[in-house]
């Protein structure tokens, strides 16, 4: 009886069931197309830009999670892979466009446009898009190659060597680009006369690589974000994910159980570098961004690390959420007039949270979800108060936004040192399951209370 028709319990094993074959990949690409075609025109330029940044940041945070979260190594040079991928793709794109199309201006279709006022009928996909896709992939591959060269010697060693080596690597990349290269070539004839192997010399130097076509769009950025999450999830939920996580959990035991720890650490590192390189490629071709190695130094790496730690080391959804929150938060803080209306969110959150808390206390149910609601509500309320005071005194709160940003980080890390989701995914344990259990515990209690 127990063996034949028994249904296997779905549990918090890392094994997934829904993500089968090509279907999710196709769905992600389709969703990205739909967002670009239907939602992009409805959004203002500002919101579209925030969404664009969210996509790129998700790629960066989720890819770094594979190293710092899955295998427990500590890379401090993720932005360097972004720089390598970005500059590589930019070089291919810029000089490739000149050589192939005669000019470097944007020649992409609807899917590549972040401009809302393009004239005339625009094709969906052009040879420019194809070149952009190719150079993005190439940027990712070159970054992955660098990841291999950096990772192989440093990941053989245990401990903090990787942190030091990656920090050094990041600085080397930055300095090399700034010191060894010179201004980009702008003259079509000159570009035509320059041999291909010399192009990497003309990528902007200390002033940055300007004149790049702005191909990045919601299609590219959100599409890549979706594919990065899918890839990370599929790795995590496979035997290779278990191998990665076992290294972080106990390297000696992992090795004794037959895991070639060096090989897997290098693999995680190379995959992460590949995605960071592609994120860099998108970043380089974003409207309003000038590709400058100076901005892709260790400060940028720390930004990504903060996202990963905040989301919970090892949690893909956690890293993605943290990327979203930390992209929106500084923009929100920039707009005090908007923040004043935080009451609209804060009051129902706090009131609802307190009501649920009382209900839960009476039923002796878990109070963590109401607490979370109250905490979030209080945070929003405090921001609203600060914004209101600042407005009455004529202070520009936006100038102090980094203080609030830092404060928010400190408060979150004190309240949840393991990060928002620790190692699990939101659908495994996080809010959903907590909410479900909590509702169930309430229902059970009410059921008994009824006569």
């Amino acid at each position: 009886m127990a063996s034949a028709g028994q249904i296997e319990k779905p549990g918090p094993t890392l094994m997934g069931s829904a993500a089968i074959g090509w279907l999710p990949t196709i769905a992600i690409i389709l969703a990205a197309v739909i967002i670009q075609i239907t939602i992009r025109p409805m959004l203002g330029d500002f919101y579209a830009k925030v969404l664009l940044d969210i996509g790129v940041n998700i790629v960066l945070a989720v890819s770094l999670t594979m190293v710092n979260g899955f295998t427990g190594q500590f890379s401090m040079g993720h932005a360097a892979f972004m720089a390598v991928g970005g500059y590589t793709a930019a070089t291919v794109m810029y000089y490739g466009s000149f050589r192939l199309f005669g000019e470097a201006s944007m020649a992409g279709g609807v899917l590549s446009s972040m401009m809302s006022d393009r004239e005339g009928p625009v094709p969906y996909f052009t040879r420019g898009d194809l070149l952009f896709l190719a150079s993005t992939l190439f940027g990712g591959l070159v970054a992955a190659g660098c990841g291999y060269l950096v990772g192989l010697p440093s990941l053989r060693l245990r401990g903090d060597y990787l942190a030091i080596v990656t920090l050094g690597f990041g600085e080397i990349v930055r300095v090399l680009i700034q010191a060894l290269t010179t201004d980009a070539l702008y003259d079509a004839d000159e570009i035509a006369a320059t041999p291909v192997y010399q192009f990497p010399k003309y990528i902007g130097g200390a002033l940055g690589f300007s004149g790049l076509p702005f191909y990045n769009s919601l299609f590219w950025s959100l599409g890549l974000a979706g594919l990065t999450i899918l890839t990370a999830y599929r790795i995590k939920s496979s035997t290779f994910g278990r191998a990665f996580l076992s290294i972080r959990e106990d390297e000696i035991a992992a090795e004794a159980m037959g895991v070639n720890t060096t090989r897997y650490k290098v693999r995680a590192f190379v995959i992460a570098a590949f995605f960071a390189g592609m994120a860099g490629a998108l970043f380089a071709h974003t409207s309003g961004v000038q590709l400058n190695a100076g901005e892709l130094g260790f400060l940028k790496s720390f930004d990504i690390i903060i996202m990963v730690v905040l989301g919970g080391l090892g949690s893909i959804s956690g890293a993605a959420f943290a990327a979203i929150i930390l992209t929106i938060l500084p923009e929100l803080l920039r707009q005090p007039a908007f923040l004043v209306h935080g009451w609209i969110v804060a009051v129902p959150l706090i009131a609802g949270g307190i009501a649920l808390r009382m209900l839960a206390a009476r039923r002796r149910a878990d109070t963590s979800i109401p607490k979370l609601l109250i905490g979030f509500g209080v945070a929003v309320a405090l921001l609203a108060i600060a914004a209101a005071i600042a407005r009455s005194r004529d202070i520009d709160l936006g100038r102090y936004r980094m203080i609030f940003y830092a404060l928010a980080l400190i408060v979150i890390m004190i309240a949840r040192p393991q990060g928002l989701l620790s190692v699990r995914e939101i659908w495994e344990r996080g809010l959903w399951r907590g909410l479900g259990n909590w509702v169930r515990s309430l229902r059970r209690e009410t059921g008994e209370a009824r006569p």
Partner: protein
Amino acid sequence: MTGTEPILKVEGISKAFGGLKAVQDFALTLNPGDVQGLIGPNGAGKTTCFNLLTGVYRPDAGRVQLNGAEVTGLRPYLIAGAGMARTFQNIRLFPDLSVLDNVMLGSHLRTRQNMTQAILRTRFHRADERAIERRARRLLELFELDTRAEEEARSLPYGDQRKLEIARALATDPKVLLLDEPAAGMNPQEKGELRGLIDRIRREFSVTVLLIEHDMNVVMKICETITVLDYGVTIAVGPPGRVQSDPKVIEAYLGVPGEAH
């Protein structure tokens, strides 16, 4: 000679840490199906022996042959792949992973899928993952841990953690299983169960067992041959009864009356 090839043949391995000779000229022969014990006072070098056999340390001298293949000084994952699995004296589970994932990791070294297949979720990958999970659940059933499969390994009681470590080691499909103090921290009833369990896995998985144990009751009852170490030197080898009455062994454990060290 019975004509069977020894499954594990250790010839005179030694290891020194600086001036301390932790293990000297250690030799051991395990025939298929054996259950042998390795005992000795604290600090005698038992765990160091295990670390030398499994590749955590590289021996300064001597040879280790596993199932006819030379594995001396190989890295631990290669030795695990060659068919030697172990547990640890101070339990080394993967605490944040579920009980099931701990055992499923044990099957990792026998998987034939590659990472691209995992990322593309091919049919082969899915079938392989299902097989790994089935196998892991069977092992958990055997160790009566199946009801806690979804819990984090860290949440298990001590005795269950020891059992989980053995289950994880068995998932690597070993020919030789090294158990480092499997009964440590167990109560008398659990110790009794453990004896039955070791006997059962020896038969069902046809593994050969070498164990380190402090509990003489356990060692004497399940081991056919016992090797006694003291200060890194083998002082006695033989069946339990003979070893127990060996004066050198008694001296090592109790000291010689009247002799001042």
